[in-house]
């Protein structure tokens, strides 16, 4: 079976761990528990008839005191960039992280997830910001770890991108 390492990157409290929990275990909790270092999990997906074991590295979120550690991405085939739709500044963090990934590892396949689609009425990231990202060639998926919307799709799309590369 093919095994591929992928990473989740983003600002703190955007919902990376919740997305992994939803994807791997179909579970969700409202309680916020910060991630220290990295949590590694795995799940098998099917891409065009080929089974791929995704090894998911859920990295601690970036904040003003702690930068995301790029060494965690060693050996990664792709990554999910995550922002919180209700916090506009997390989109800028996502951009900076993508730039750092490019500088360290080159252009890896990635999917940009804007999480918390269930809180649409509180969103600060508007359609124009989304369109700007899409205009730069990003694949943008609005998702909700809480409801499950867009989660499978995001991981599946990333697996597809990695498989086709």
């Amino acid at each position, binding site marked *: 079976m093919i*095994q*591929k390492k992928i990473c989740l990157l983003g600002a703190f409290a955007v919902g990376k761990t919740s997305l992994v929990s939803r994807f791997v275990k179909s579970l969700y909790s409202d309680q*916020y528990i910060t991630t220290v*270092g990295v*949590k*590694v*999990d795995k799940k098998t997906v099917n891409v065009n008839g080929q089974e791929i074991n995704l090894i998911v590295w859920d990295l601690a979120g970036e904040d003003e005191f702690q930068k995301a550690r790029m*060494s965690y991405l*060693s*050996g990664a085939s792709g990554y999910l960039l995550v922002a919180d739709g209700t916090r506009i500044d997390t989109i800028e963090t996502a951009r900076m992280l993508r730039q750092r990934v490019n500088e360290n590892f080159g252009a890896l396949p990635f999917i940009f997830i804007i999480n918390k689609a269930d809180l649409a009425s509180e969103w600060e990231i508007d359609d124009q910001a989304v369109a700007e990202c899409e205009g730069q060639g990003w694949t943008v998926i609005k998702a909700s770890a809480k409801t499950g919307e867009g989660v499978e799709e995001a991981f599946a799309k990333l697996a597809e991108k990695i498989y086709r590369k």
Partner: protein
Amino acid sequence: MSNLPAAVLEYLNHLASEQRSPAYFLSDREGILVEWGGAIELYGVSNLQAGSPIGDQIFFLEGLLPLEDEGLTLPCLQTDSGRPADLRLFKTSEGDCALLLDASEQELQQRLMQQKGNELNLSYQRLVKEIQKKEILLHCIVHDLAGPLMGIRGGFELLAGENISDKGRKFLEIGLRQTAKQDALIREILQAFSAEVESLESFNADPDKAPDAARSASEVIEALSPAFALNQVNLRFDPNLDPTKDWKVVGEKSRLDRVISNLIENAMRHSPANSTVTVSCYDEGEKVLVAIDDEGPGIPPEVAPTLFQKLAQGKKGRGKVGLGLYFCRITVEHWGGEIGQAPREQGGTRFWFRLPRPQKQDVRS
């Protein structure tokens, strides 16, 4: 080579073994598992087979071996089935080694601090949002109040042109004065609460972009001259002021204009007819002092200490609820300045504020 004696090295080795529960995995240059040992079960690893790819058997090592660089340190790695561990990858003569060292204690300590820090950060962000929401609500309420007020005022002004009795005209004037007061109050509320929310905004400390206090004062004087004329109070700029001098101050132009405007309007309200309000600027080296002098009755001593506080009010409550001076204070102080008032020897009051001059930043090559 370490200069530590063998006994110390032995002790350190013992310490690591006892406290860090090491586990190791050795793979060859093709990433095939060759050997393993230590407390591997603690990290959720079991049922290993030599001769198979290491990444297939220990999933968190997928993509990491064989090592491309000399070594790699990945702190605090966790899986569902094992303890948090520091993962260290390094080359040996036999191949690549992956070493796991228990990091449970460090993870717990860091998580407690990080959790608290992140929660506080999120609370702060939510608070800022709530304040902004309230400001928007306030603006909506005030504008909904201001809208009909314009209509009322317009109606009164049109009525003033009609043929009405003297008594009617008197009532009309009362109505016009009250609408003017209401209008001023609405503007003050908007200013005061906007300033609180916008206190996080940046202002100009760059000499190229900083506002000019004398120019601001001059423009405000020009804008307020009609109102002064209506109230029969003279408004003038200090004739001895040199307009060619540099009067730049740290701040932001539109708000500086508002500060000066508030102070001048305040002076007008407390000035009797045929008196004069004078606006001046003084060079104090690294600071600029702006002064507004009136010839009014002065500030009662019991009122003076609370003049620049929110909702402060003069003794006779001349229409304002005191938000204008409060706005001036928080704005000037936010820019690193001071504000105050003092009685004048010749009668009347001087309201003043002092702001630092912008400093050019050193450019290092």
